[in-house]
């Protein structure tokens, strides 16, 4: 078996030295990452809501099952590569080795079994953590109507008759129902990593997202879907507080806030970035319904002339 390459080709660097170099490099890199992560809010792992913690549990389950098959396979591959390398004289070289029937059955059966293991977990988890499934809880839920606009979030509390921009406060251990829609904005995605997964907010539709916070604190929320130039700045703060603090916050807003009628709404909906946190009371209750109906294409419903000339969205 003449090797047409020059045999004197400097042989592969000895395995020991490469493994050593790789080992030190990787551990140094790992240390650096761990040091950088200290004290940071690793949102998806620091779950502060019931939904987020279940999602974290699912991620860990899936990770362990897959690593259980992936890691040994890769190690087996490296070991085979090392053991049958050219310079390793003792290993038997058997070019015409035929692979038996059993091997074929095994390589199909093993991954199928692992995927079955994962499939068993997938279906119930998907049904259990479906965003528009109401959360079982004794306390009545609070509905918050969320409107994604070009590059800010408007939160309307229909029961409490108040509205806020880029800030939402919710009580702990109370099921919250977010009814997401959008107005004159491309698709956005409402996402508070610490509390639950994301869901799209689109014009002409209401996407219902149920979640329940389990720990007080301020959490970052943002749009996860690109919707134009101001996408990076389209973020809000979600504060989880006790029930009393929530009630006092609502009352305090009612005293100090200005009204949100159709006129102020039209100026608010214009594209703008880095909007300061503002609050409104009282709120015109037909605002939300009109916005959703405005984009309804299929109903027997003529578009109001006024929105027509404002620009085709």
């Amino acid at each position, binding site marked *: 078996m003449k090797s*047409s390459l020059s045999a004197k080709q400097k042989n592969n660097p000895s395995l020991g030295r490469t493994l050593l170099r790789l080992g030190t490099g990787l551990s140094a890199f790992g240390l650096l990452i761990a040091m950088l992560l200290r004290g940071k809010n690793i949102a998806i792992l620091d779950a502060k809501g019931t939904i987020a913690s279940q999602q974290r549990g699912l991620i860990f389950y*899936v990770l362990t099952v897959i690593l259980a098959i992936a890691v040994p396979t890769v190690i087996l591959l490296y070991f085979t590569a090392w053991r049958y390398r050219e310079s390793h004289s003792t290993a038997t070289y058997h070019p015409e080795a035929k692979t038996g029937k059993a091997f074929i059955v095994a*390589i199909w059966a093993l991954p199928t079994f692992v995927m079955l293991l994962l499939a068993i977990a997938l279906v119930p988890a998907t049904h259990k953590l479906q965003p528009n499934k109401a959360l079982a809880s004794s306390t009545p839920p609070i509905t918050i109507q969320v409107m994604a606009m070009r590059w800010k979030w408007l939160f309307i509390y229909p029961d409490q008759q108040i509205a806020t921009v880029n800030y939402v406060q919710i009580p702990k251990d109370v099921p919250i129902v977010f009814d997401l829609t959008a107005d004159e904005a491309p698709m956005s995605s409402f996402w508070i990593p610490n509390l639950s997964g994301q869901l799209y907010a689109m014009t002409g539709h209401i996407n219902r997202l149920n979640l329940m916070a389990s720990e007080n604190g301020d959490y970052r929320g943002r749009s996860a879907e690109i919707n134009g130039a101001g996408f990076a700045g389209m973020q809000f703060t979600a504060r989880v507080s006790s029930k009393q603090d929530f009630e006092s916050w609502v009352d305090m807003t009612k005293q100090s806030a200005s009204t949100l009628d159709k006129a102020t709404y039209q100026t608010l909906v214009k594209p703008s970035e880095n909007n300061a946190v503002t609050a409104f009371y009282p709120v015109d209750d037909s605002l939300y319904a009109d916005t959703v109906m405005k984009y309804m294409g299929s109903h027997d419903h003529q578009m109001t002339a006024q929105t027509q000339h404002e620009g085709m969205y």
Partner: protein
Amino acid sequence: MKEFFLGRLTQDSLPHDWVTVGGTGTFIAMFLFAALILTRTKRWKWLWNDWLTSVDPKKIGIMYFLTAAFMLIRGGIDVILMWVQQALSSGSSHGILSADHYQQIFTAHGNIMVFFVAMGFIFGLINYIVPLQIGARDLASPLLNTLGFWLYIGGVVMVNMFFVLGGQYAATGWLAVAPLSGIAFSPGTGVDYWIWSLQISGIGTTLGAINFIMTILKMRAPGMTIWKMPLFTWGSLFSMLMAVAVFPLLTATLFLQFFDRYFGAHFFTALGGGDPMMYTNLIWMWGHPEVYILMLPAFGIFSEVVATFSRKPIASYTANVLGMAGVSALALSVWLHHFFTMGASADVNAFFGLITLVIAIPTAVLFFTWIATMHRGLIRFDTPMLWFLGFVTIFTIGGVSGLILAFPPADFQLHNSLFLVAHFHSNVIGGVLFGIFAGISYWFPKFTGFRLNERIGRNAFWCWIIGFCLSFVPMYILGIMGATRRLDHYDAQTGYQPFFILMLIGGLVIAVGVGLQIIQIVASIIQKGNLRDATGDPWNGRTLEWATASPPAFYNFTVIPHVITRDAFLDMKRLGLPEPHYEDITMPKNTAVGIYIAALAFLVGFAFVWHINWLAVVAMIGIIIVFVIRAFNEDSEYVVTAEEVKSIEEARIAATAAITKKSGAMSEQEDMSVREFVIYVYDFAIDIIRNKKWKSW
């Protein structure tokens, strides 16, 4: 009047900010430099006759490689620009790019890398190697081949055109999801450039795919049944079958979006009854199979590389082929896992999650066949094998993160986060790009007659692997910290900045890797004599492409070989190469029709981008006329007589005999290392300056 003739093309569409002016300047400088050399060496005729109008799949393959390599560097510059911006723009400082500009760069980066780098290299490899592997002289339709290539070039020019004219590309993400890409939210010409660069190169890909399917199914050497085809040909066949199945979907979706933007239709608009969700649904119906179209040829390359470098036939040929078939069959059934978060019901999400799990099974089977092939082999760790080991490491990380994302509840947390971005880059860079590098270093001796420098190749590999880990492990972590993709600035308290800086360092290490690959090619040219492979079979290969000379004559085989078993070339070597006898060969003539139709197609696109209606109509009529003229002219082939073939062959045998005699079997000179290369270039430069050699050029 001006409006009629020039549509929306006006004074201010010329570039004005520093990045685009810089870009335009470098492009024009490069073209002028090339033109200067061509005129100095009086090679315009040679360029036109030997290369541009050639229908030889090997020439077209080389042109694909050059364009794709050029686009890889251009896409790479985008990455560096983006990661510098992300490393700097924490808190108050806004980095070097505006939000809009940053968004255009990542859209252009996505399109260039998928359409013009990955598809370019894949089409180059298939063009060059598949005819050789199946024992054919040319593709089924030479016209479709050159037309497909030049439409690809039309797409390349269109995607880089926005630098020169308009200064604006789509700021919407590589798939320009509606309604953001609609006329209401993206009124400029940006999305139109996006539509027409993808439309023109997409149609080119469809035509190319039809051509390859016709070739693989209808023009195999006698005796080579479907089950004796080499595995790279299998991978290419599955890839092209998927391309034929889904690229029309892309063409139709782009056509509908063009109607929305140009004629004010209401397919995907928010108002007027349109349904933006339908756009996401349609674009991903093409989007997901596209990533498998890129991956299948890479699987084929790895099967060939592992078999040859373990000096064993592939462990279980049928399991390998069935694995590839399984992936391709399910390609068109999983696309909803790209928009689990849009709001579909639990049953629909669960169904598509399950199918995504099922697709992982055939991929795992492919892995096991490679392990079994290496078992009891005699493995040589040349660069192709190193790229394979790199692929195994990174593709497995991508596979693990992919299976997590297959779970809808987990995807709700990770969709559009940097975790997702790191996932698909693991699969695309680890799988497709490493597959392409393995393929190119494996078949480089066949392309040029001399192999690549191993030492610098190995350094380049380690730069790629280390650079990849340095930049994409922090990206996985940022994803888990809640950082979304496409952020041009972020708050300081998020603590993302150190990780973005690490990513930038990783990016620079990869840039060094790319630099080393260029140096590797130049060094190999310098050491050509030493690295020459006169036998045409440097790796002791098993498949037919090694039976031809390196580089093969334009007719590939003097006489089409008869195939007995899967290892066609091995049988020929065992039974002794047949004594050469020659016969007349009919070969297709060169044709410029591909260039003309592609140029007119480019004009159609350009006219629709700038709303110059008369130009669009004229160009379309031009295409019909050129096509009709070509369709009805019948003499497009010529015959190479047996004597001419005999003389070509004898000249080649004499030349290789002379070279081997001169440099002995293999001169003992070592492969040049990077240090030696730098010294060599330094001496070369000094020599020119001191002896004023540049005067003679």
